Each structure stands twice: as C-alpha cells, then as structure tokens.
C-alpha cells in the first residue's frame, strides 16, 4: 500500500465530503483503491439521486435563450446545480452557455463537475476558455480539480494549458492528483527536459518531494526510469533534499521501488549518498524491502555500496530475525545474486555468519548448487570460504563435489582463497577429495606459506583426519 497514493485519495475524498484530510486520517489503514471507490460511489450517488430533476431542468432550458440562461445560471442556479445539469443539455447549447459565463463561475462549476460524465462538453470547450479557467484554478491552488480534468481533456489542450502554466510547483501538483496514470504518462512525456528539471527543482524549493515521488511511481516504467535518473542526476543538495524528505515522511515504501528503476550509475550515486548511509535511512530501506518483498531491488543496491556501507547494512540486518537472512538467501538463489549476498554476509559478525551458514545448509540441493555455480563462475571463493567454514562437513563436501564438476581448477582457486582469508577447512576437504596428481601439488603450495601458517594447517588437517594430506 502506497502512503502517498493513500494521502492523495484522502485529500480527494475530503474535498468531496467537505472534510479536511486530517479528519480522514483513519483511512490510512484502507487501501487507496477502496478510498477512490468510496469517492466515486459518493459522486455517482449525488449525480444519480436527482437525475430526473436535472433532466427536467435541462429540458426546460430549451424554452429560454442562452443569454437569459447565463444570467439565471449565475444568479440563481449556481455552480453546483449547473455542474449536474450540464451533462443533460445538448452539447452545443452547453458549450455556448459556458462561453457566456464568467471565468470564476466556470471554475466554481469545475470543482463540482465529474468530467467523466460530461466528456463531449469538456472536449468541446474552446482551448482559450479552458486556459482561462485553468489559470483561475491555479490561482486558487485547486490542483485536485485540475488533476481530474487532466484525465478528460484532449492531450493537445493539456499541452497548451501546461505551456501556459509557468508555475512548476503547480504543474507537479496537477500531475500528482491526476487519476488516469496512463494518460498522465503521455502528458508528462510532452514536457521538455528543461521543464522536467525545473519541476524537480520546484519539488526541492516548495518541499514537494513526496508529491514528486508519488508522481514518479504512477507513470509508465519507461518514464519512471527517465524521471528517476533525472532526479539522481541532480546536484547533491537537491538529491539530499529528496532523501531527507523520504526520511522525514517515512515513505521508503514509495521511494525504494523508484530507486530500483534508476540506471546503475544513478543507483550507485543514490545509495552512497551520506544522507542514505545513516542508520535511519538504511533501516527504512530494509523495512520497505521487507514490507514489499523488494529484496531483488535491495541486494544489487547493497552491492553498489562501498565496504563501509555494506558493513552498515550488515549490522542492521543481522540485528533482525532469521527471516531477513532467509529472504536474502532465497533472493540470491532466484535472481542469481549470490555474489551480492556473500558480499553482505562477509560483513556480518562471526556468530551471525555461523547462524546463516546453518540456515544456508538447510536449503535443498538446487540452492546450494546455484551458490557454488555462481561462486565458481565469478571466482568468489574468498567470500564463500568464510561462510562455508561454518557449514556442517557433509554440506562442505557436497559443495566441493559439485564445484569440481563445474571447474577442474577449483583446487588452486580454493587454496588461493584459503591463503588470502586464512581459512583452510574447505580447501582441505577439496584436497582430500582430489586425485593424486592434484594432491602432489600440496608441498609446493605449503612452501609458499610461513612456518606458523604451515603449523596451523597441519593441525587442522590432523583434526579433520587428513594427516596424510599435509607433509
């Protein structure tokens, strides 16, 4: 459930019911689609319950000239009733009547109008008049009403209205409240790169980052990538402002999926920002991944961090329950993200590594084979050895046996990795399982090590029952 979409729907329902968004705070726990359904049901009921009377008013209007009707509409009927009768009048007559009414009155009528019910009329109003009414609505900062009209006006008209609306914050808010997201993507697509940049700046200058992020999450995936990359390409002040807004409003559930749509260089820049690299932000990111199952987005992001960042994530992740480790393992398997997962596990405390090694050991053969295939392919033995050492011996043997079928050169790579990290159990297991020609290379390898290292390895080989392996 999106916090931003929920808030937008609460605001729209509040406008219809004559309540403040804060009066409807209790709807936070309801999904936004149900709030929208309640609004549409209410609006439909209001249009339908006096339908007969609206039709009779429209019928009687035929007896009077439009010049007189305009006077009656403005002085007696009022915007609310006009909005409900308009759809029952012949379209040409309604367009002519609208042309005779003052702009503020038409703006009042628009507030009451459900444009989906009067599409032919809306589309028949001259662009110049639409622009005048739009100006009036912008002056009133009634972006909810304008958002409704974005859905119903022809794209060419919207383009002209947007060109005629220099306020970038207004443009952002109109788009935020628009309901037909497919249509919205086309509309945003009209805007120049320069205008979109200005809209981003407006998000920063007017504290509208939640709305900007809400907008990004609505539009088509291609446009989302373009906008997200554009945001990530801004200067540090602007990008940091975005992160601070996400933290302040706790909207990682909305923001993280957008980050996932960024190109790799943009994601790298974003995730390594100092504002992201603090406990509050990283905890929010992990919580959002958990809420939305965004582990396939998170793991590659963590891998784009520097070592210090990965260590911070590891510290936060390891403080949580085993479910999170289980999710990392399943995601690494399903999306071939083992290297990223091992890079993260590498930064955990030894006792947590032991727990996750056990957890990993309990997975079925296909998961373990996927792990070894990935490690073998990317020569990532140093990372695996640290975890592998803490697995039960039979699982270590299983991993090595499968590794040897994939890579005949596994022994030398294992030994190199064992030397690098000073962990020899897995290498010794592999050596024990190798043929004589491989084992014959051991003395030469041992010569490269210090006396102390040789003593340690010999001791470990003896305790594992491989005394004959090490001279």
């Amino acid at each position, binding site marked *: 459930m999106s916090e931003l979409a929920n808030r937008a729907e609460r605001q729209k329902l509040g406008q219809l019911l004559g309540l403040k968004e804060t009066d409807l705070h*209790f*709807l936070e726990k309801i999904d936004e689609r149900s709030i929208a359904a309640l609004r549409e*049901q209410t609006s439909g009921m*209001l249009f339908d*319950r006096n339908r007969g009377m609206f039709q009779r008013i429209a019928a*009687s209007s035929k007896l009077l000239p439009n010049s007189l009707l305009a006077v*009656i509409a403005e*002085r*007696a009927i009022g915007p609310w009733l006009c909005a409900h009768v308009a759809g029952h009048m012949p379209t040409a007559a309604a367009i002519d009547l609208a042309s005779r009414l003052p702009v503020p009155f038409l703006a009042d009528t628009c507030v009451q109008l459900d444009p989906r019910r009067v599409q032919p009329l809306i589309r028949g109003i001259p662009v110049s008049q639409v622009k005048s009414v739009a100006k009036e609505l912008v002056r009133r900062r009634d972006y909810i009403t304008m958002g409704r009209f974005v859905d119903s006006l022809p794209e060419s008209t919207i383009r002209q209205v947007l060109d005629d609306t220099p306020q970038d914050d207004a443009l952002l808010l109109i788009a935020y409240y628009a309901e037909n997201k497919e249509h919205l993507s086309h509309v945003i697509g009209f805007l120049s790169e320069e205008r979109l940049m200005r809209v981003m700046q407006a998000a920063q200058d007017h504290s509208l980052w939640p709305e900007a992020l809400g907008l990004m999450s609505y539009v088509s995936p291609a446009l989302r990538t373009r906008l997200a990359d554009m945001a990530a390409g801004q200067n540090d002040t602007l990008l940091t402002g975005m992160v601070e807004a996400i933290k302040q409003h706790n909207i990682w559930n909305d923001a993280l999926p957008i980050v996932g749509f960024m190109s790799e260089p943009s994601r790298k820049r974003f995730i390594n920002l100092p504002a992201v690299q603090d406990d509050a932000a990283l905890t929010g990111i992990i919580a959002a991944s958990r809420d939305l199952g965004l582990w396939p987005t998170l793991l590659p992001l963590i891998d784009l961090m520097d070592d210090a960042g990965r260590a911070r994530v590891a510290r936060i992740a390891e403080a949580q329950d085993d479910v999170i480790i289980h999710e990392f393992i399943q995601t690494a398997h399903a999306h071939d993200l083992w290297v990223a997962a091992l890079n993260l596990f590498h930064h955990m405390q030894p006792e947590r590594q032991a727990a996750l090694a056990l957890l990993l050991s309990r997975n079925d053969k296909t998961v373990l084979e996927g792990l070894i295939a990935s490690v073998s392919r990317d020569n990532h033995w140093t990372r695996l050895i640290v975890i592998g050492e803490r697995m039960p011996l039979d699982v270590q043997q299983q991993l090595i046996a499968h590794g040897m079928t994939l890579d005949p050169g596994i022994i030398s790579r294992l030994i190199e990795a064992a030397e690098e990290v000073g962990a020899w159990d897995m290498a010794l297991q592999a050596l024990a399982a190798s043929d004589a020609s491989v084992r014959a290379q051991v003395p030469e390898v041992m010569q490269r090590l210090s006396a102390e290292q040789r003593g340690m390895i010999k001791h470990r080989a003896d305790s594992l029952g491989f005394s004959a392996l090490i001279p």
Partner: protein
Amino acid sequence: MTSAALQRLGQELGGNAPAALAALSEQELTVLADAVARLKTRQQQDLGKALEAALGHVPALLRGAVRKILFA
C-alpha cells in the same frame, strides 16, 4: 457480520460500501456516513432554493411552461 455503521454508510450511498471499509471502527464509519448524509441534505436544500430563485428570473410569460416541465 456487517456493522450497523457500515450498513448505514451503505444506505446513504444507495448500495454496499466498499468491502475494505469493514476494517474501520463504528466511530470512523459514522464520520463517513454523517458526511455523506450532510452532503445529501445540503444538495437537496440547494436544489430547492436554486429552482425557486431561477423561476424568479424566468419571464412571466414562460414561467408557467417552465414550472410545468420542472414539476410535472
């Protein structure tokens, strides 16, 4: 079981309220039902007043015909 407040909201809307609203408390549902009821009352009052005011602007010669259409 449908709560009394959810049932009342449905009645005000002239049908069943969205099912997800069953997660709301009686008090919260009452806020919504009251708001919809207020809106309907205001709409009815506005309609009556607007028609009377509008008839006042219709030329006397046509007023009878217009009234006949409106209140047939």
